[in-house]
């Protein structure tokens, strides 16, 4: 193996400097999410904010009129659709719409085809929400949001150090390293650290930033419930083979992860079945095929 991989460099610092050049997360989505959490807000205010965004309006109407709900009559009005959907579905559609431009991209260094990261992220978000409900975590939508963006750091790495990612894969493969170890050796950091930095720049809540930072680090995710949920969601989706990259199974799992969340083997089996059913529905509705 070349000495290059062992030499300390300042790649991570250079990536951090460039992160400000990434397109920012849409402000209209941030505002809409804030309205959804505000008890003094209303559906009318939300509709007023979203009606000028044709892509979001189209996605909301398409989702509302999908076979999933089986409506006898087609809904064509945004405010009626929002009222019908409710807070959780609206949040999910907003996040999915806003994330698509970032996540629906090939990431050659991680051997991911177009839509792989998108499919993996949607499935992990569904898994995190399912697990959050099962564990009685008080804020399942936050688990969904964080999990949807948990691998956002891979996109930044692909943009800024694209060709060196192949070296990470080869290093991990040849020396049988954890993928994060190989990322640290080559870049001085891993995609989780970079993802957390991006979300901090985009002013996401601290608990989401922390969970994204921790999702591949067993010593860290075992100390925090949201981080543990996100880590387990990712582990289950990897096992289901959904949108896998080159890093896939090259990680360790903390031996106490299930105990931390008070889950049993039977709970995990039930979760996997529920995640698959929900993921298949989401593919139909979001045209992920």
């Amino acid at each position, binding site marked *: 193996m070349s000495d290059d991989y062992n030499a300390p460099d300042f790649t991570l610092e250079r990536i951090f400097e460039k992160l400000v050049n990434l397109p920012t997360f849409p402000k209209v989505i941030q505002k809409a999410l804030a309205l959804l959490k505000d008890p003094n807000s209303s559906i009318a205010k939300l509709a007023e904010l979203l009606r000028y965004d044709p892509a979001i309006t189209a996605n909301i109407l398409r989702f509302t009129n999908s076979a999933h709900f089986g409506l006898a009559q087609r809904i064509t009005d945004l405010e009626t659709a929002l009222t019908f959907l409710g807070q959780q579905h609206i949040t999910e559609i907003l996040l999915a719409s806003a994330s698509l431009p970032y996540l629906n991209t090939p990431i050659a260094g991680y051997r991911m085809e177009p839509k792989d990261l998108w499919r993996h992220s949607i499935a992990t978000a569904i898994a995190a929400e399912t697990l959050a409900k099962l564990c009685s975590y008080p804020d399942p939508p936050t688990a969904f949001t964080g999990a949807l963006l948990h691998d956002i750091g891979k996109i930044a790495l692909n943009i800024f150090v694209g060709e060196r990612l192949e070296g990470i894969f080869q290093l991990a493969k040849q020396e049988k390293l954890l993928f994060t170890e190989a990322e640290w050796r080559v870049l001085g950091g891993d995609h989780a650290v970079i993802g957390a930095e991006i979300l901090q720049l985009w002013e996401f809540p601290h608990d989401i930033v922390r969970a994204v930072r921790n999702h591949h680090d067993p010593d860290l995710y075992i100390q925090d419930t949201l981080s543990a949920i996100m880590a387990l969601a990712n582990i289950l989706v990897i096992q289901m083979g959904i949108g*896998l990259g080159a890093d896939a199974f090259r990680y360790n799992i903390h031996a106490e992860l299930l105990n931390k969340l008070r889950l049993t083997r039977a709970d995990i089996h039930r979760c996997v079945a*529920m995640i698959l059913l929900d993921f298949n529905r989401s593919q139909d509705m979001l045209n992920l095929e």
Partner: protein
Amino acid sequence: MQTFSIKNGEMMVSKEPGAVLEACSVGANLAVCIADANAPVAGLALFVLPQMPQMPNAFDEAQERLPALAAMSGLPLFFKRMLQEGLSMDNMKVWIAGAACFFSGPADLSLGSQTYTAVKKILEANKIKIAGEHVGGQFKRCVRLVVGQDGVQVSFDDQEVML
């Protein structure tokens, strides 16, 4: 020639010579391929769990939409469909691939190992031999089977093997 993509919990049986059955998202799940050595009939099922979980509100939906979700209930169904399509038990060949695993982790989270054990148990109980297998490891796989041809192609980490 037509290519059929099999996803988690699905099974497909084909009698169309030259048709390709493939599962390209094989992680810890387990692809079971069955073919008749003397007739153009083959099938591929992608199992995810060892047994059907208890889920009072969605059990029927899971069984209907994901017939190969669980090995214990799905594998007998898979054999039944193959036999209905003309598979001869005497000429049957079975290959399995998948069950990838993390470097380390608790057994309760090792879905691949659990599903592999369940499949092996069913095959052994019915005295069915495995013609070839490619399981374990820290990588995803793509599994391909061509109706009417012998063997199963497995791609992983820039490599390819024929079982």
